[in-house]
């Protein structure tokens, strides 16, 4: 990807990410998040990673943000701004950890600028075969481990839901 389209997309991605945290209304935050996911998908397309880009749209834009909206509407569908919690220690902790994360990120970027080679387009035009082949042969074990992790998450959700029903 050449510099100018990357710069435009990166700027848009940053702006939409800012929109997520600066919106007073949770529904707007979710919509900004949707825009952010779409811009990231565009970046994948620009790097000729077709499959990753389209999966980004299907999974994040098509399912996860819909579920976010679902939850937001269930717990407070009316148009009311979020109230900021009055917990002083939460803000202090957030500032400290945010600063540590920012420093780590800046360090990584500073390292990367000098060491990393220029990004190449994905092999074989980022096709499904190019992604699926290595995933099911070379990287089979980590792939299966990740799926077990997801399974545990799902089981956790089911257990929590069942517990609540028993109390009722």
């Amino acid at each position: 990807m050449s510099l100018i389209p990357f710069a435009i997309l990166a700027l848009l991605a940053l702006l939409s990410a800012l929109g997520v945290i600066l919106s007073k209304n949770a529904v707007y935050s979710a919509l900004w998040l949707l825009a952010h996911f779409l811009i990231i998908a565009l970046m994948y397309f620009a790097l000729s990673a077709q499959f990753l880009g389209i999966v980004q749209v299907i999974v994040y834009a098509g399912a996860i943000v819909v579920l976010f909206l679902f939850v937001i509407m269930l717990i407070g569908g009316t148009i009311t701004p979020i109230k900021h919690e009055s917990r002083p220690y939460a803000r202090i902790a957030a500032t400290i950890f945010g600063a540590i994360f920012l420093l780590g990120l800046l360090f990584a970027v500073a390292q990367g600028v000098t060491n990393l080679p220029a990004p190449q387009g994905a092999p074989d035009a980022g096709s499904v075969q190019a992604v699926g082949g290595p995933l099911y042969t070379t990287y089979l074990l980590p792939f299966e481990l990740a799926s077990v992790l997801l399974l545990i998450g799902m089981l956790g959700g089911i257990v929590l839901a069942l517990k609540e029903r028993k109390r009722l």
Partner: protein
Amino acid sequence: MIATIIVILIKILVLLLILLTGFAYLTYMERKLLGRFHVRLGPNRAGPFGLLQPIADAVKAIFKEEVVPGHIKDKFIYLLAPVLTMITPLIAFAVIPIAPDLTINGYTAHFYIADVNIAILYIVAVTSFAAYGVILGGWSSNNNYGLLGALRTASQMISYELPMGILIVSIVLASNINAGEGTMSLVEIIERPRPWWLWLWLFIAFIPFFITMLAENNRSPFDLPETENELIAGYQIEYGGMKFAMYMMGEYLSMIVSSAVMVTIFFGGWKGPLVVPGTWHGVLLGFGWFVLKVIAILFIYIWVRASVPRIRYDQLLAFNWKVLFPLSLVYMAITAVMVAVA
């Protein structure tokens, strides 16, 4: 370069004209057929056989006053929602081939806008945006009925996307047979020859796939987001005039697109008797077969609407999670074994 862009723009224009006319006459077909199913005549006042009815409807919708109710706090999202619902099926149609290629004097004309190797995923991705139109419309209406409709849409569409996705995976898997490599391009899926038993096996998947499509398009008996007897039209409740017409267009256009997708992956798209690819009459006849098959599936949509009563919301979700989803998983497993053996 410029010539290519102009050709694509012309194709888009022609496709839009076909689809919008198709939408208008699909409403006519539905009303006429529902009339027959109910043993009455259906629209018969505007023009011969009521053929001008869609035009009368369009004129009525366009000249209605655009009212935005006073309690709508968020006009931008309120107006954006019907537009989203309407344009997503139009965008999805870009990857569906409607006739075989034609080569004249070394120039090959393609009867699709784009042939990408992720075409099926593209359709899934684009059509999932129709849910936003309904959800945002229901939410921005600032109305409890609208909100309930939006919530129902969210859970219904997400749930039914799972068996749909699994069935699509099975079809992509099955495209391996006799080819050695699977494909997600709709152009290639049509062109690949299938043995007779594969046609039969894929036809079994058509039935659950059609059911998921009924739910994805909010069609009866799964039209729970807009049930008029409990939610008084749900997410559409605060919409009138052209905005309401856009929701209607979204629903009918997604029916057309879903039918076209089903024709493409289950029934061979433009393939049919007497079609010779690469000739003028082959193109015309291929397009004819394609349209005929799409109309046949649209007829099933209307038939189902006239025959099956709406089911309860808990039944809708239970049917998906306890019947459709496990069945599609079993189907995928058997397909995988078939691909490995064949």
